């Protein structure tokens, strides 16, 4: 087995028993070992064969009384089930309210770039139309045509500025939304049971 095969086998087998970041740490550890052994003059195959096989590494981890976190499913007792079902009208509506609050926060936040985007669109389109059609306005008098042309240019410029603003804001807001979503996900789903064997 070469280094890449070893790492692939190990990580795919570990992914069933450990969290991704723990898998990465363990795989890094063994990869470092292989590279260090190779630096001592061993061939890649020889270095890999010096280590325990992925199967026995996994066995040794399972058997160690340590603080490795295994994804153990929590057993839900029947009493809890009954309580959960009976209490649904209460916690269901509370959960819905919570979801709505989070949703409205998102909507509220995204209103800002949306507003900027609308202004950009209105400015660019309005300005363009106004500039293009300003020759027609000169029929009512040169000063009216000129004014329309000037205002049109101003609108167009403002529109472009707003477009730039929207683009830069969207980037920040996307990043912000992502980090917020991740935080919420972490709070909701990252409570895993720890078990010592």
């Amino acid at each position, binding site marked *: 087995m070469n280094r890449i095969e070893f790492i692939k086998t190990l990580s795919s087998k570990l992914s069933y028993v450990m969290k991704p970041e723990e898998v990465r740490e363990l795989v890094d550890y063994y990869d*470092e070992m292989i590279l260090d052994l190779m630096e001592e003059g061993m061939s890649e195959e020889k270095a890999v064969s010096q280590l325990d096989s992925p199967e026995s590494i996994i066995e040794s981890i399972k058997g160690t009384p340590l603080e490795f976190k295994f994804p153990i499913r929590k057993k839900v007792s029947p009493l809890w089930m009954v309580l959960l079902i009976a209490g649904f009208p209460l916690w269901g509506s509370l959960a819905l309210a919570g979801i709505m609050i989070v949703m409205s926060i998102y909507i509220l936040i995204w209103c800002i770039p949306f507003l900027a985007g609308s202004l950009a669109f209105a400015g660019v389109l309005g300005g363009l139309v106004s500039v293009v059609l300003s020759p027609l306005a000169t029929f009512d008098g040169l000063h009216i045509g000129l004014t329309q042309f000037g205002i049109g240019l101003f609108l167009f410029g403002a529109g472009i500025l707003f477009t730039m603003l929207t683009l830069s804001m969207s980037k920040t807001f996307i990043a912000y939304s992502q980090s917020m979503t991740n935080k919420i996900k972490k709070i909701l789903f990252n409570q895993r049971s720890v078990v010592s064997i």
Partner: protein
Amino acid sequence: MDTQLKKGLIEYYILANLKYGDSYGYEIVKTISAHMPITESTLYPILKRLESQGKVSTFSSAYNGRLRKYYKLESEGLDSIKSFLGSWEKVEAIHDYIKRSVENE
């Protein structure tokens, strides 16, 4: 050596090893192997436990175009060594007791 005894000793061996200077996985395995045989798979959980107990900390440092994870002794680790040495008298008393049981035969 008895595996249970070895497990207990390795922990302090590693801490003592790091007292001499920061070290990395392969080097630690090599150093320990001079006194007692150990595999990487045995070492990893121990290092991990020492880290989670705050006795050692880790940092990555570039070496030969790759990152190497180094282990560093923390003050909790040093305290742990000292308390191990402090309890040596008790260990010796137990050792003597066990020894007498065979001598009196």
